[in-house]
């Protein structure tokens, strides 16, 4: 199991478009992927779950990856968070 703590860097926060990208990225992998924030632990492969987090800029999320390809998934998804979803 891999656990990563990431921060939301872009101004608009985790809105629909980056949420959809995260779900798409995660769905490529076999491993389970969860995002936790404020006592909610949501499935990162579900768009409604990711959007329910309503993560604003500056907030911290805990990403959990578990399964055979967890390393690859963790690398790609953590990188997407750290790039601020390629948004200002």
């Amino acid at each position, binding site marked *: 199991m891999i656990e990563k703590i990431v921060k939301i860097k872009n101004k608009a926060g985790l809105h629909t478009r980056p949420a959809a990208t995260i779900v798409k990225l995660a769905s490529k992998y076999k491993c389970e992927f*969860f995002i936790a924030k404020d006592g*909610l*632990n949501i499935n990162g492969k*579900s768009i*409604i779950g990711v959007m329910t987090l309503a993560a604003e800029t500056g907030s911290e999320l*805990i990403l959990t990856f578990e399964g055979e390809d967890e390393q690859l998934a963790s690398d790609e998804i953590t990188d997407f968070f750290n790039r601020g979803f390629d948004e200002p």
Partner: protein
Amino acid sequence: MIKIDQKAVSRKEFITVEFFYMSTRNLFQLELYSDTSGFNRKIFEQNLHRPGLALAGFVDLFSFSRVQVFGNTETQYLSQLNKEQRIKAIERIFQFNIPCIILTDNNKPFPELLELSNKYKIPLFGTPFSTTKLVYFVSDFLDDQFAERISIHGSFVDVYGTGMLFIGKSGIGKSEVALDLVERGHRLVADDLIILTKKGEGILMGSGTNMGRHFMEIRGLGIIDVERMFGIRAIRYQKRLEIVVELEIWDDNTEYTRTGLDQEHVTISGIDIPYVKLPILPGKNVTVISEVISLNYLLKHYGYKAAESFQERLNKKISEKNKDDMRGVEYFEHDFE
């Protein structure tokens, strides 16, 4: 099996008096006597306290951090004191960090009590309910506020009045099963993210989040609004969790329940919930099976256990000496239908 990450479990540490007042003013008919300057005070626990002894001077072990309820005893006690004594008694307990005070039975506050509660910024409320009733109501409300909350990924549907939670890997078709059930007249509680709240001993109540309420994602289609689409009959806001159904792709190495004599359980937050593992196969209608699971649960609940009943028949047959015909009908008497 279900596994719950500690990250999915949360519990409120405190609520502010303002939140308490805003959420319960109508329920408990609370009237605000003091000003709102103490509204940021915090309530940390669900227990209430009657400060009779503390008012009388015994402040050892005074549970000051609880909501303080002034019933008839406290009011009567204060009324038989003279003004100085009253101020002294009230100030004695106001030295402590009290969250707020509720006067029951329509008792009006003494001018000194009102004045001091504004001075010490301790909110003062009144209610027409009797102390016993108010204590019951407020404890229940606070109990719910401070209860453990667990977030779970799944679909939660009321099937014939049974709260069924579908869990399983993402993409296995939980939402599709829920949608199918809704189409057949059952009611969706929440899809995707379910919040379970411990209520009392042995009960878990499930609901959605305030954001994701009755929205659902169908792969290949996107997000749909079940309430708008199917109307009010298709939804409900809360339901007690009664059965957990795990969907999984048929696995040749897994043993599935055959007789149903032993009910499996999952433990969520210390509470045992009946659990069914349902393999998915082509041509298997999960929706109909879900309905049957619910009906079987209801039968069991009302005292009839099909598997046990069949077992009894078997045992009777085995013990019988002369076994008659195995055919279910003894004699087809001119009935060729």
